[in-house]
């Protein structure tokens, strides 16, 4: 840790770049959380932080500690895997709760499941499941 000054210039620049990229994207995600105007839009913006926001910081960390310790330090990969695997769980909880509330309040912006399906089935190439009941 105390040998940070020994880092070659190109590695230091790359680590700095990755850290700025990652934290910058996370900040943008947070700004979006404030600026966007509906719940379903706001839900998209933290994804910046959970993908390249996290990714940039983790890549920077991997490069920095691998250079300092002189061996590959890769356990940051686990953080990336667990963040990716757990994000859908919280997102689905939030989205389902919002959907339930909006449907109970009969919010016109949120169509019912059937309405969306019918509207989309006009556009989507018709598969075997549209129209006839499927035997299973």
């Amino acid at each position: 840790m105390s040998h940070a000054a020994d880092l070659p210039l190109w590695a230091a620049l790359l680590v700095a770049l990755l850290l700025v990229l990652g934290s910058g994207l996370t900040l943008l995600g947070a700004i979006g959380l404030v600026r966007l105007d509906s719940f379903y839009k706001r839900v998209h913006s933290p994804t910046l932080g959970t993908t390249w926001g996290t990714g940039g910081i983790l890549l920077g960390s991997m490069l920095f500690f691998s250079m300092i310790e002189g061996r590959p330090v890769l356990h940051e990969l686990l953080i990336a895997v667990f963040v990716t695997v757990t994000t859908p769980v919280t997102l689905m909880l939030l989205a389902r709760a919002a959907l339930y509330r909006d449907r109970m309040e009969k919010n016109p912006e949120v169509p019912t499941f059937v309405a969306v399906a019918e509207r989309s089935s006009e556009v989507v190439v018709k598969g075997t499941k549209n129209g006839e009941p499927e035997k299973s």
Partner: protein
Amino acid sequence: MTRVLPYPLLAASLLAMWLLLNGFTPGHLLLGAVIALVASHMMSALQPSKPRLRRWTRIAHLMGIVFVDILRSNIAVARIVLGGRNPQVVSGFVAIPLEMRDPTGLAFLACIITSTPGTAWVEYRSADDLLLIHVLDVVSEESWSDLIKNRYEALLMEIFE
């Protein structure tokens, strides 16, 4: 083989996790292998469903596609956030009829859709095989359901079904 290793994938990932956390030494390889074996045997008490991987080689292809898409949509969403209240950006719900039934494949699809900024998995009904997603910038509904079906679902079905 199945008696010694009831869940080979689980055991392999546990071993990989152990080695990543503790560093690669012969001692940790042995200890990690023992822990992975014992843990995967304990897991069999819960009788989780066993994912079948049919085509290994396509996984790298899928990961490459997803990596590029995440990068591209990061830029797109960052632009929308910076642009503020742009009236041209219309967000909305898109319903997609899925053909995939495999739970592991669906879980992977959920991770992909959620990890891609600009698309969010909202609802899935297994009775209708219909998926509802919310898209931040709907240019056309058709192209979004094409993207999910042809780009991701087809590959996932090749891998898991």
